[in-house]
């Protein structure tokens, strides 16, 4: 199995982003997904900047993939999507059907997690258009992924969301702006103040979600580090690790060692725990509510 670094879902200052990817060049990941996928108002980096980062990573031996927006609303969004799709240098991950259409018949592309591939019929259709890898929706269980893989077209790679806060929903409305009593068009880019999302708790104190602008994520961090054997058996070829602001390189290292077999699953989970911004969860993988953490229950 390969390791990938998913697209950066948060809004970080330009310098922080550049530093993050300078370090990532040395991390033991095979693939790096780049680009803004959440909000078209975020402009710390332009497409040219992402391409420059991509070139540096490619020179360091990484496979580079550019990701498109998960929600396209305006003409400007469409133009950006087309610029990404036609970048000419790197493979592209399509996150909506407009992007899939723009990429179809133009060589291999990645069917992103927001394309809603829940079955082999849809996957076969995307394969005809040129998809050579699909990223399973976060809701899909190990059993579900395995069933899709069993009927997947030959040569199709399967990528799963193995680490990070789960992107659960997207809206046209910005919840970080709403929290700050600001309108979306005058949001003051306040999501830049929350490098791992803005925490949202229930009234009885449960850490439940985080707000990331127009995107809503789980507060808990999904981790499948104890499930690498089952993931391989289910047919996963790529494990996606979703960027966090601190110690991401250490997270990658734990997964790498666990994959190479130099770290036992239980030890890997123990090493990962202090690196995580919140408690782990893995319910979706087991066909349960995503918020549950079944690894803990097994260990206990």
């Amino acid at each position, binding site marked *: 199995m390969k390791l990938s670094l998913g697209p950066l879902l948060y809004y970080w200052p330009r310098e922080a982003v550049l530093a993050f990817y300078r370090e990532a060049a040395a991390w033991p990941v095979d693939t790096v997904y780049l680009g803004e996928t959440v909000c078209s108002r975020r402009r710390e980096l332009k497409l040219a900047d992402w391409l420059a980062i991509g070139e540096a990573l490619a020179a360091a031996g990484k496979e580079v993939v550019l990701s498109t927006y998960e929600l396209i609303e305006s003409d400007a969004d*469409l133009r950006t999507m087309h610029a990404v799709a036609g970048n000419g240098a790197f493979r592209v991950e399509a996150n909506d059907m407009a992007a899939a259409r723009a990429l179809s018949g133009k060589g291999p592309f990645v069917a992103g997690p927001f394309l809603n591939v829940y079955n082999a019929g849809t996957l076969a259709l995307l394969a005809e258009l040129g998809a050579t890898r699909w990223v399973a929706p976060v809701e899909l269980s190990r059993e579900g992924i395995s069933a899709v893989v069993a009927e997947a077209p030959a040569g199709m790679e399967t990528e799963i969301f193995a680490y990070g806060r789960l992107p659960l929903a997207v809206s046209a409305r910005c919840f970080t702006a709403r929290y700050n009593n600001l309108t979306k068009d005058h949001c003051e880019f306040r999501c830049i103040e929350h490098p791992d999302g803005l925490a949202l708790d229930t009234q009885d104190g*449960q850490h439940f979600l985080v707000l990331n602008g127009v995107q809503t994520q789980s507060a808990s961090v999904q981790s499948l580090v104890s499930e690498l054997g089952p993931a391989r058996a289910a047919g996963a070829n790529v494990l996606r690790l979703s960027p966090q602001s601190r110690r991401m390189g250490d997270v990658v290292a734990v997964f790498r060692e666990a994959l190479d077999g130099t770290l036992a699953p239980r030890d890997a989970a123990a090493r990962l725990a202090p690196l995580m911004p919140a408690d782990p969860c893995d319910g979706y993988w087991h066909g349960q509510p*995503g918020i549950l953490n079944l690894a803990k229950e097994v260990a206990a």
Partner: protein
Amino acid sequence: MNALPQPAPRAMKLVCPAGTPPALKLAVDNGADDVYLGFKDETNARNFAGLNFDDKSIREGIGYAHRKGAQVLVALNTYPQPGTWRKWQAAVDRAADLGVDAVIVADAGLLAYAAKAHPQLRLHLSVQGSATSHEAITFYHEHFGIRRAVLPRVLSVEQAEKVIARTPVEIEVFGFGSLSIMVEGRCALSSYATGESPNTHGGCSPAKAIRWQQSPRGLESRLGGVLIDRFGEEDHPGYPTLCRGRFVVNGDTYYPFEEPTSLNTLELLPRLQAMGVAAIKIEGRQRSPVYVETVTRVWREALDDCARDRERFRVKPAWQAALAGISEGHQCTLGAYHRPWK
């Protein structure tokens, strides 16, 4: 609005929900052009106990609707889950055999099957398909020949207008009902807490995961054990969906996503008609026959008024009063069509 004289656009169709046969009859009797319904299983996004239609009631419903000049659409608007593909395929076959006027589908694979196996069957792209641009809609048109697409509720009027101007596909927009703040087909909040979501099981916030509990701090609603809201004696409790919950961010307790409100676009009707909207959808297959009767009656009258003379169209207070009386949360908003938050 455009000052140039424009060709009179066609009257917009009124698309009404039916969760039960009495609701279907009331929708038809009160002037619905299309009535949409679902089978009794997870092939549709209102898969609730006791709701929806078996073959016999669909046949009778189609007969009743056709006699009165209305059409029946079947929603197959969830995503076929791995290993159960045949069930959805069979549902498409069943709808075609029953002679429904169209099926409303979200999944690209299922659309491909329907287009191939039943070339005569009229296909509508469900809102759950998350097609938010004319290019996404064109994708479904090129590949499966969809005739109508339902626009996600996140688009503004200006955005919807641009989509309509650039696609040959009929566009249906939501006019009234429960308002989803998230992009349809792109929300897994429900399954995060309960294991079931619209995409996977055909329902948001499944009833079996809901608990109402009286506590010293008020009436509490929980979903999958997660506290969604607390209500005092004077509060009006709503159905506990996550995006309508009251939560705490940095010590502030408020509705971080939205107040529990309903969508109501009556006042936009002239604009929607002028820009070429083909159909207006009413949400609420899970609601009672009284709801369907009231909404259909009001919207029929409003659409007729608007079609007669768009310039002079005025929203009647009686309509708003009738609709306010059956709205969840008792407020009616224009949703994303109008964006005070933008």
